[in-house]
C-alpha cells in the first residue's frame, strides 16, 4: 500500500527526479573542503531555528532586552542551550562561510561559467556579516552598546553620505530604542530573507553547472 501511495504522490510531485537532480547528481572527485558550503547552509538553518525559539522570550526594547536575555539564560528550561547554540553558531557560520570562500578562491572555481555563483557568494558573505553585526546589539549590554556605537560611527566617516547613513542605521543621531528595534527587524526578517533568496540562486547555479573539478597539475 505504501508503495502505491508513494507512486501516486511521485507522479504528481516528482520526488524521484528531484532526488536525482538534487542529491544524486554526478560529482567530480571532491574533498572535505567541498562540504563547507553545505555546512554553511546547515548552520543557517540551525541559526534560523534557534533564532525563532529565542524570539519566544526575547524582547527588543531597551527596558527589557537585557532582562529578557537574563531570563532565557536562568529562568527557562534549556534557554542556555538554545542561546548557546545560536551564539556559537553565529561565530562558526562566519568562519565557515569565509573558509568556503577561500576554498572557492584557491581552487579557482569562480571562473567561467561560475562568475555569478561567486558574485552571489559575495552577497552571502556580506549578509552573513550583517547578521553578526545586527545580532551583536540585541543583548543590549555594555559591550553590545559600544560595539554598535563604534560600528555605526565607522559608517559615519564615509564622505558626503556618511552622516546620513549613520542616521539611517541608528534611526536618528544617537543609539536609542529605535536603533535596537530596527536592528532586530534587520536581524530576524530583512537579512535572513536576503540570505534565503541568495542561497536559492546560489544553489540553483551550483546544480546547473555542477561542482567544478579540483585543479590538476596541468591547470
Amino acid at each position: 500500500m505504501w508503495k502505491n501511495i508513494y507512486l501516486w504522490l511521485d507522479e504528481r510531485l516528482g520526488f524521484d527526479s528531484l532526488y536525482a537532480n538534487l542529491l544524486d547528481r554526478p560529482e567530480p572527485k571532491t574533498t572535505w573542503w567541498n562540504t563547507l558550503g553545505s555546512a554553511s547552509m546547515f548552520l543557517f538553518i540551525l541559526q534560523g531555528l534557534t533564532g525563532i525559539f529565542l524570539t519566544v522570550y526575547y524582547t527588543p526594547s531597551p527596558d527589557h532586552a537585557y532582562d529578557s536575555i537574563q531570563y532565557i539564560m536562568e529562568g527557562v528550561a534549556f534557554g542556555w542551550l538554545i542561546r548557546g547554540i545560536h551564539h556559537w553558531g553565529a561565530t562558526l557560520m562566519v568562519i565557515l562561510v569565509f573558509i568556503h570562500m577561500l576554498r572557492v578562491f584557491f581552487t579557482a572555481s569562480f571562473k567561467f561559467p561560475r562568475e555569478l555563483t561567486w558574485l552571489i557568494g559575495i552577497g552571502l558573505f556580506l549578509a552573513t556579516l550583517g547578521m553578526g553585526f545586527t545580532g551583536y546589539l540585541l543583548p543590549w549590554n555594555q559591550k553590545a552598546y559600544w560595539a554598535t556605537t563604534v560600528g555605526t560611527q565607522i559608517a559615519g566617516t564615509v564622505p558626503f553620505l556618511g552622516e546620513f547613513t549613520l542616521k539611517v542605521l541608528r534611526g536618528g543621531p544617537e543609539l536609542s530604542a529605535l536603533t535596537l528595534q530596527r536592528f532586530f527587524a534587520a536581524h530576524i526578517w530583512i537579512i535572513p530573507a536576503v540570505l534565503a533568496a541568495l542561497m536559492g540562486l546560489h544553489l540553483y547555479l551550483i546544480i546547473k553547472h555542477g561542482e567544478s573539478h579540483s585543479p590538476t597539475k596541468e591547470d
Partner: protein
Amino acid sequence: MSGSNELSRRDFIKVTTGIVGGLIGAVIGLPAVYYLIDPALREGGKDAWIPIGKFDDMQIGVPYPFSFTRVQVNGWERTASSFGGYAVRKSDSPDDLLVLNSRCTHLACTVNWSAEADGFLCPCHDAKFDIAGEVVDGPPPRALDVYEEHRITEDGIVEIFFKEG
C-alpha cells in the same frame, strides 16, 4: 562480497545518516519543546499567609486598617500590587474576627473607615458600607469582600491567607 545479507555501502550511509540525523534532532528537539512549554509547567506559588497586625492592637468595634503589597514576577517583568483592608473585632472571642477587603465593590476605589459617619465611605461615588461591610448607600452591587481564611499565630499575630486573583 555483495551477498544479499551484506549491507551495501550506500545503504550503510543511508542508515547511518538517518540515525545520526535522528539523534541530533532528538538532542535539540526535545529540549526545544521543553523550552517552549516551560512557563506552563511553573507553579503559581503566589498563595501565602500574610501578617496584618497584632491581635491585641485591634480594639473591639474599631476597624483596624492594614495594607500589604504583593509582587508578581512574570518572566522579566515584575508588577507590584497593593492591597488593603480592615480587621473588625466584634467581641472578645478571637473567632469573632471579620477581615474586610477595602476595595470598593463598585469600581474598585479604596474605602476608608469614618468614625463620624460610623461606616466605610468610598470617595469615588459616595458609597457607604456599615461596619460589617454591608452596603448602606450608593451604587455598589454587593457587600465588601471578606478575607475568609485567617488565623492567629502563637505570637498573637493575625494572618490572612492570600490567593492570587
